[in-house]
């Protein structure tokens, strides 16, 4: 029996323009920054910065392809852009739809809340892994043409982290939406959590005794452990996937108990 998941398709369709726009934006940002590698390769941009700052921004090794890609694309721009996109999409899919009243239409049909939530999480995963795949192809091509010396597999590992990062934050946004039903609440909470955990990953390790805080950051487990240099970290991947699963369970618990009101 084929698995019927009409809500996945419908969600992707309704978000298609947003996905296209963000996909295009991400690809352009990556092309512009990634493409500037030849200028950085022989310069010493980081030498003009205090070493702490340079290291927080991962600017201490801009001359290697892996270091450069990490500092620009995978450690900074893509995670931040994806964080914003994830919060917007995740907030819209439960809280936004409840506020607009469009959730009623689904839930007045013979569709369980559990199924609605799971199909929407499925749609989120499809979107995030799709964007990550696009990124994988693009960065691999850039690396090959600009002679960055990064393996396709290591780029893939970083992109897998990116896909999971987007999924985790979008599901976090859905979870806050399932609890609060308010989009403004979703944006506020997720922005705070996003910024805090980003700082945990970048600044935390600079402070003595606070090295451990990076372990609490999804940004660390996504790309902060530098898969471009160190290869795929299975533990990090599993931790991210596990976090996503836990968040789905929490969201489901909250959503099942919600009064759906407009």
């Amino acid at each position, binding site marked *: 029996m084929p698995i*019927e998941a*009409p*809500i996945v398709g*419908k969600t992707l*369709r*309704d978000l*298609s*323009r947003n996905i296209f726009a963000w996909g295009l934006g991400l690809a352009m940002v990556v092309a512009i920054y990634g493409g500037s590698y030849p200028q950085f390769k022989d310069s010493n941009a980081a030498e003009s910065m205090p070493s702490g700052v340079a290291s927080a921004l991962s600017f201490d090794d801009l001359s290697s392809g892996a270091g450069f890609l990490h500092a620009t694309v995978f450690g900074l721009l893509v995670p931040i852009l994806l964080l914003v996109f994830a919060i917007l999409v995740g907030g819209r899919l439960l809280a936004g739809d409840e506020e*607009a*009243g*469009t959730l*009623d*239409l*689904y*839930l*007045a*049909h*013979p*569709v*369980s809340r559990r199924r609605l939530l799971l199909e929407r999480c499925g749609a989120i995963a499809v979107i995030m892994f799709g964007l990550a795949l696009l990124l994988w192809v693009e960065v691999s091509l850039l690396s090959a043409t600009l002679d960055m010396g990064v393996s396709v597999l290591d780029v893939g590992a970083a992109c897998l982290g990116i896909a999971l990062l987007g999924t985790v934050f979008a599901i976090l946004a859905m979870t806050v939406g399932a609890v609060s039903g308010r989009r403004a609440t979703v944006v506020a909470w997720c922005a705070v959590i996003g910024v805090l955990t980003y700082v945990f990953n970048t600044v935390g390790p600079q402070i003595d005794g606070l090295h451990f805080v990076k372990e609490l950051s999804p940004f660390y487990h996504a790309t902060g452990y530098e898969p471009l240099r160190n290869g795929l970290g299975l533990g990090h991947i599993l931790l991210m996937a596990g976090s996503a699963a836990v968040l789905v369970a929490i969201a489901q618990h909250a959503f099942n*108990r919600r*009064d*759906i*009101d*407009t």
Partner: protein
Amino acid sequence: MSEHAIQTEQLSKAYGSHPALTGLDLEVRTGEVYGFLGPNGAGKSTTIRLLLDLLRPTSGRVRVLGMDPLTKGIEIRSRTGYLAGELALESRQNVDELLRFLARLRGGAGRDRIPALADRLDLDLSRQIKGLSKGNKQKVGIVQAFMHDPELLILDEPTSGLDPLMRQVFLELVSEARLRGATVFMSSHVLSEVQTAADRVGIIRGGRLVTVDDVEAIRRRAVRRVEIQFATEVPESEFSRLPNVSDLEVRGSELHCQVNGVPDALVKAAARFEVLDIVSEEPDLEEIFIGEYEEAQHAH
């Protein structure tokens, strides 16, 4: 099949300390058309959302088609068609695609009837959902509620936004549904919307069911304002002791009064003079409510 399509016992819903519904006892018989009347904010939509398991009761019991919405929601909703009061549709699809998607949520039930229903309602299936007028969105809502021939129809303010011709088509759909044995539960804040279709009417006010009666009885108790313009001056005494007439005021050739129930005596008295114009405002539900409400207060 259970005797009652919808049954609630002491059903209450509160938001924090604010009660939206207080001890509602509702009985909708299988196969009847039940008009659920009340002013805006009386608890009509809250009741309907409780029936569909969109809201969870604070206390009391709900049975829809003999089942509890909390545990058997999916089965109830597969046998029910629902039209929301404030139907929100957001989609990048056209009408046909959205309706087919909704049919897929029912395992395909009703897909075949989409073209015929759209045709009757004069709904263009190729239009984009975005940019549909309120009336056209309402038509989409009616199609999705009726297309799978459900045994229970729950319709919240179904005719809002429809022009008179489409209201007629809608009423035909309701009577067809009734003929094939379906139960129809429809809410409205206007009596005329339900009086032609409904067998019985329940009136809710302030979260309580104030009265349940057949439509005729409600109409007989209805209050209407009547204004008559005569060709000449008329003596007030000719009208002052007529049955069902109150608040009489005669100024020269103009007569204003309030009629409680059947206006027969007034019309016959007026017929003795030359009548230039007669205006009878539709019974004002709000005034009926006030009457019912006061009766209920006096009874206590």
